[in-house]
């Protein structure tokens, strides 16, 4: 198929960017979206033009490094699918496709479609862990965890940190990302000890990074490749209020 691409090109963090037009022929429906960009870049190399920079690594939907806005939707037209797992069979001959970076104040653009998501790292560093140093662990089966709890903790822990939730949210809120970690750890007996301080410092960090507040539009859940539920956000608020009340 033949495609008309409008791709965001921007030199660096401080310069202005704009959409540039490209036409790409002979795209096969079996190709993944990123393989389509590879094909474009291959053609740009031949012409000696600077390639379109985009982030990606595993190309199997688990590392969370890929992610662009495709026709205004985070990770493209399919729900709950990373950009790397999107295939060209979702498009048709003659389509015009707008490709832009994930946009949020807390995600500065580095170049073209590459963004800086280290704000997520700092949220984790603020408390998204259990303080268990190497060598201190007791026998694993000494604390049974019922099947449902373990499964629920897994559901929250499955987040890949791609940032689609932020990109799709009209407030650029990182509530889904942050709450998934808060819930994962608060559900497990090992994580309960630090639950009170964790939720506060992670939420404070989230705010200070410039992410917006959650107004419960639930758009994030639709785009999340791991189908992380917005119930995590409710849980985070519950944990937060609990910690405030217990403080008093």
């Amino acid at each position, binding site marked *: 198929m033949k495609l008309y691409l409008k791709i965001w090109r921007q030199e660096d963090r401080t310069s202005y960017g704009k959409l540039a037009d490209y036409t790409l022929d002979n795209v096969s429906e079996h190709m993944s979206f990123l393989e389509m960009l590879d094909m474009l870049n291959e053609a740009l190399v031949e012409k000696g033009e600077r*390639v379109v920079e985009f982030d990606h690594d595993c190309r199997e*939907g*688990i590392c969370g*490094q890929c992610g662009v806005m495709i026709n205004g939707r985070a990770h493209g037209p399919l729900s709950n699918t990373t950009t790397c797992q999107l295939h060209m*069979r979702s498009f048709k001959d003659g389509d015009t496709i707008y490709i832009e970076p994930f946009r949020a104040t807390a995600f500065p653009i580095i170049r073209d479609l590459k963004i800086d998501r280290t704000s997520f*790292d700092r949220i984790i560093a603020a408390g998204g862990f259990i303080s*268990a140093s190497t*060598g201190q662990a007791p026998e*694993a089966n000494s604390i049974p965890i019922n099947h449902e709890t373990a499964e629920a903790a897994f559901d929250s822990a499955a987040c890949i940190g791609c940032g689609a939730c932020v990109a799709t949210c009209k407030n650029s809120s990182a509530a889904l990302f942050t709450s998934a970690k808060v819930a994962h750890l608060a559900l497990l007996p090992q*994580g309960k000890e630090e639950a009170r301080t964790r939720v506060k410092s992670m939420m404070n960090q989230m705010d200070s990074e410039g992410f917006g507040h959650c107004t419960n539009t639930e758009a994030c859940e639709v785009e999340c490749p791991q189908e992380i539920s917005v119930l995590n956000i409710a849980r985070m608020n519950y944990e937060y209020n609990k910690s405030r009340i217990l403080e008093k």
Partner: protein
Amino acid sequence: MNAKIPEGKLSEKWSNYKSHAKLVNPANRKKLDIIVVGTGLAGASCAASLAEQGYNVKSFCFQDTPRRAHSVAAQGGVNACKNYKNDGDSVYRMFYDTIKGGDFRSREANVYRLAECSANLIDQAVAQGVPFAREYGGYLNNRSFGGVQVSRTFYARGQTGQQLLLGSYQALMRQVAAGRIQLFSRHEMLELVVIDGKARGIISRDLETGEIERHSAHAVVLATGGYGKIYYLSTLAMGCNGSAIWRAHKKGAYMAGVSWIQVHPTSLPQHGEHQSKLTLMSESLRNDGRIWVPKKQNDTRHPNDIPEEERDYYLERRYPSFGNLAPRDISSRAAKERIDAGHGVGEMKNAVCLDFSKAIREQGKDKIEEKYGNLFRMYEKITGINAYTEPMLISPSAHFTMGGLWVDYELMTTIPGLFALGEANFGDHGANRLGANSLLQACVDGYFIAPYTIPNYLAGELKTGKIDVKDPAFDFAERKVRRQLGDLMHIQGHLSADYFHKTLGKLLYDKCGLSRSKEGLEEAIKEIKMLRERFYKELRIPGDGKVNSELEKAGRVADYLELGELMCYDALTRNESCGAHFREEYQTPDGEALRDDQNFCFVSAWEYKGKDAEEELHKEPLEFTEVELAVRSYK
């Protein structure tokens, strides 16, 4: 080369080592700097553990955050001999399975230690909050993996690597917050700095600004993962590379088992020219899936239309006692044999069927969905096919490198002060790795071994003082890096780095892949030399010296073009078949690998001798005191 295996009985060696390892006084630890390149399971766990002890750690990765290291992609599980299932598992049995699985080409002492530390890793991970699968009573659950007859694999649905990695990433970030780890993501190590024979630092490139930086330390750890991406089409991530270890190799660190590359039997088949990746379908699927091809050659019917009696369950037929759970090397080779004989299925006739109809009939769809739901979903996302109603199509794909930097029992390379951990070292897996053993190895290296052996080395470094980045060795290394980058940018040919990468990959699949021959390897060596010459004439890298993915790729491909040649030499000089290394000249009448213990019971370790000079082969003899060398049979 001295492997430094401690004295004593096999079961006591590691305890002996630990009781005698030198310690560094807590007050002195903050005077010692350690560089850890890599934030996968091996790197993150090592960095976190050393920082917890009080050392200054600098941690590097090329991704935008440490949490994306390719360990994240491991699906199936991690082995540990907890014997929770009471099915006869023990440290010894796990040790034996691993040695046998590796076709008796690994060190007894290392493998024993791996098994010994395995139980502790599960404790560690659970304490960090890794949500492993649980039974209804609340206790941890297990499943079985290829090559063994007990159930010792712990798993977190199909995302075990991700969950383990998040555990160590979080431990790492805790130390970042505590100020004991400095994090350098989007940084690529481009050179190792050696001063007076010791590893003293690295030169790295900031992948955003393009800045070339100097970092010094008293010890350098490479935990940079495997180089299976050399085949281009593989189960690895796009950025996985051999550059860090290759550049260390050129600075004097030996490489061992270089051509021992595991080809995984169950990945999605190639379907077209532009494909960049072969996605793995976890081996755990083989617990319930049955592998078959049509008995008739070139059968074009849809798999569902082929009646039971016209299907050849070739693994069950050839290896009745292990059946679909035969080890990876054997399963992959058996698949290739059937495909080459014209029984392949799918559009390109390059696949075999992995069929769940029997399991679904017997256990119900719900049970199968609970065990493998995310894998079936992933299969559908990529292929558009619902595998609950028809077989998955799978084929072999390059996956894991048993080879890597040669290390001694302390995980130190032949350069003092340079350590290699995880998939980046050669080692515990011999000539073939058992499924679910490498997450384990990466974690054990980082959490439990390096935290003893690195301080043991550092104890001798207390008087060294800060390492100065103005040392002439840093000038020299930096100049070399700048020259290489400049040279690559200036070629101004017309072909992309990917073109060369793909060409090399195809060549290696054909001649240094699942099966190898003297003739093919000799051809490959010539062809790689020619391809390398073309690379330096015809490559083109547009753009500037800042964010430039073409430049990053070109540097990696330049290294692959040298490493690939060494792989072929390594395979050519090993006149036997063992594990993943199958030389067509050395096989039994029924097509099984023919090992030669008389002449090849050693590790091949290669020493770099300079540009265009042939590498020198060193042999580390493998001595087996505890196990008897046996023919590895899974029949």
